[in-house]
């Protein structure tokens, strides 16, 4: 394994059990690069994971402390954990699109509402791929999947004027970015800013599921075909691209500071305690 994996990941977990060409490793690596660039060590970060391929393949890989919450519960666990951790300790969560934008969306929104200090990395593979490739909340419109044999008919969170990041922004998220796993330094820079941000931050990263999504949608399980498809739709310069395209970069960065959840609660309990003593 490379120097990054050797430095930060458990040896028995690498190589992972992910399929050949699965883009999750590209996402994982970018997060590690950001951590390394920031000069953070294993003990500085507590790593949380969700369910599905994104959760499973990053689960317990971090050499430092790990925790996991299935089916969208990890944001609620992270909220509680935030109160127990030292304020300077970072929390990074690697979750999937179903976990964050579907089954766990309410928990996610409440973590945003409270401005809980954590960085959520949503590794998006366009649906429920670990169960065979059923459509989800970001499946491109018209895509043939296991559960949409005539094409994706259900409105998703990322097309036709809807954007899930817009909802998170309205709910109070202070730092939001979108990238694809085929990008390089620009994505690492966004992740670094997200980790540095004191409060809730989220980076949405689209990656290729070669086996289930592209196997059905493109009729090819050749990793390079999926890679080229995603590369052609990765759009950092906001060009006019036909069909689904992913505008990448920082989506929103708040200029005013909102008090962080654990700081607010610590301050509040201190005030209450003083009042009770007097």
């Amino acid at each position: 394994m490379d120097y990054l994996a050797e430095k930060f990941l458990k040896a028995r977990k690498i190589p992972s059990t992910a399929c050949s060409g699965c883009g999750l490793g590209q996402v994982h690596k970018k997060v590690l690069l950001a951590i390394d660039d920031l000069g953070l060590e294993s003990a500085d970060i507590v790593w949380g994971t969700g369910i599905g391929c994104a959760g499973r393949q990053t689960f317990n890989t971090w050499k430092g402390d790990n925790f996991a919450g299935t089916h969208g519960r990890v944001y609620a666990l992270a909220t509680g954990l935030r109160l127990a951790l030292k304020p300077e300790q970072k929390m990074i969560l690697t979750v999937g699109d179903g976990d964050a934008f579907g089954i766990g969306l309410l928990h996610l929104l409440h973590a945003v509402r409270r401005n809980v200090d954590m960085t959520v990395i949503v590794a998006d593979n366009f649906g429920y791929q670990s169960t065979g490739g059923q459509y989800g909340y970001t499946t491109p419109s018209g895509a043939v999947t296991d559960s949409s044999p005539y094409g994706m008919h259900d409105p998703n969170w990322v097309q036709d004027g809807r954007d899930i990041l817009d909802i998170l922004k309205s709910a109070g998220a202070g730092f939001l970015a979108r990238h694809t796993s085929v990008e390089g330094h620009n994505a690492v820079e966004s992740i670094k800013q997200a980790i540095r941000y004191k409060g809730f931050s989220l980076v949405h990263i689209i990656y290729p599921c070669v086996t289930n999504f592209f196997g059905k949608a493109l009729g090819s399980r050749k990793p390079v075909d999926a890679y080229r498809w995603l590369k052609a739709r990765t759009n950092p310069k906001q060009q006019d691209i036909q069909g689904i395209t992913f505008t990448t970069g920082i989506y929103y960065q708040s200029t005013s500071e909102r008090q962080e959840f654990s700081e607010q609660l610590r301050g509040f309990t201190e005030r209450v305690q003083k009042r009770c003593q007097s």
Partner: protein
Amino acid sequence: MAYEQKNNQPYTVRVYEQGCKECGYCIEVCPRNVFVQANYFNDKGYRPVQVKFPEKCIGCRRCFFACPDFSIDVKQGGKDSL
């Protein structure tokens, strides 16, 4: 067969054969055709990629970013830098 890395090359590229899953991304993104696929299998049953022309590498690290399986390192300097 293994290809030799030298000490007078500007960059050294290393593929960790046992971690490689034969996805072909490094071959796809490398602008200098540094890689070829081996004709044998690793312990997981994949034909790993080999660094055939290390002296051609320009150190762009595209292969490093593209490899999903933590199986490529690119370092400045000759083979002793790894």
